[in-house]
């Protein structure tokens, strides 16, 4: 691919930045999330309904990224963890100072259950040739964030299409 650094070519398809969530999936955040949008779905509030339909309480699927957002502070952390680190790696390596996320798709797998300890990794799926858009000249990339539970089952994949670019002078 024209002009793509060997470093970036090596990243494509590689599992990168595997991490485990800092805490187990818990109901208090689920209640807060449901309260913030007035989601009265009985799967999150009614034990009998949850038992009958999903075999017990689950988390709203849209919360999938929540379980990986770092605590605001911990006593032993020296630097802040960045979600979507691959996105920033591509910006830096390709020397593209600006970047946007053009769209975001989430595909849901096994339900996330109370007490699950999830893990995640990132995969760069593709990086385009140089393109010129109204924003500037740069490259599109597709980045997956894959989420699994403690049994190695896929619970979801977020796919982001990013565009890193340099403004036209």
């Amino acid at each position, binding site marked *: 691919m024209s002009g793509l650094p060997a470093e970036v070519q090596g990243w494509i398809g590689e599992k990168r930045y595997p991490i485990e969530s800092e805490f187990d999936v818990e109901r208090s955040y689920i209640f807060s999330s449901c309260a913030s*949008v*007035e989601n009265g*779905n009985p799967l999150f509030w009614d034990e009998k309904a949850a038992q009958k*339909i999903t075999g017990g309480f689950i988390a709203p699927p*849209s*919360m999938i990224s929540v379980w990986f957002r770092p605590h605001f502070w911990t006593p032993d952390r020296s630097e802040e963890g960045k979600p979507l680190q691959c996105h920033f790696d591509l910006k830096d390596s390709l020397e593209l100072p600006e970047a946007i996320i*053009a769209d975001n798709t*989430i*595909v849901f797998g096994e339900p996330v259950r109370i007490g699950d300890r999830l893990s995640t990794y990132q995969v760069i799926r593709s990086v385009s040739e140089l393109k010129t858009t109204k924003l500037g000249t740069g490259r599109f990339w597709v980045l997956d964030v894959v989420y699994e539970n403690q049994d190695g089952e896929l619970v979801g994949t977020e796919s982001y299409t990013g565009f890193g670019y340099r403004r036209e002078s």
Partner: protein
Amino acid sequence: MNANLTIADVEKGQSLPDLSVAVEVTNVVLGAMASRDWRPMHHDKDFAVERNGTRHVFVNTPHNAAYFERYITDWTGPLGRLGRIKFRMKDSVFPGDTMVFSGEVDDVRVDESGCAWADVRVNLHVGGEVTTECTASVAIPQGEDDNPWKRRGEDWQP
């Protein structure tokens, strides 16, 4: 929330009921905290105005996603199981805005595993302008004895 919808109740072109939400600072901050997003543009108006150049704090992406999930499953009932959701955010939502969600069924289909799906297109409008476009696929029971949440492995192909 709707009683449980079955796929026989759904047809292409069908409209989902509109949902209107008046946004207040409390909504925005609660959504940010619930999604563990501590960034100041979602709770500190001075920061949002002076550093982000926006007119106020604004709704963050996971909070937006939670609204779309609520909107879709309010329509399906609890047996509706989201399989896939895609967003394109075009503008931010601020305190004082009234969000209006509207949706339409793009397609109704049954996949190879026998799972019934409604593909829906949902728009979030503020003041008549679309601020977020969303498409989603939600599994819906084929009948009273069907439960999409029981599907696993090869039987779940979102």
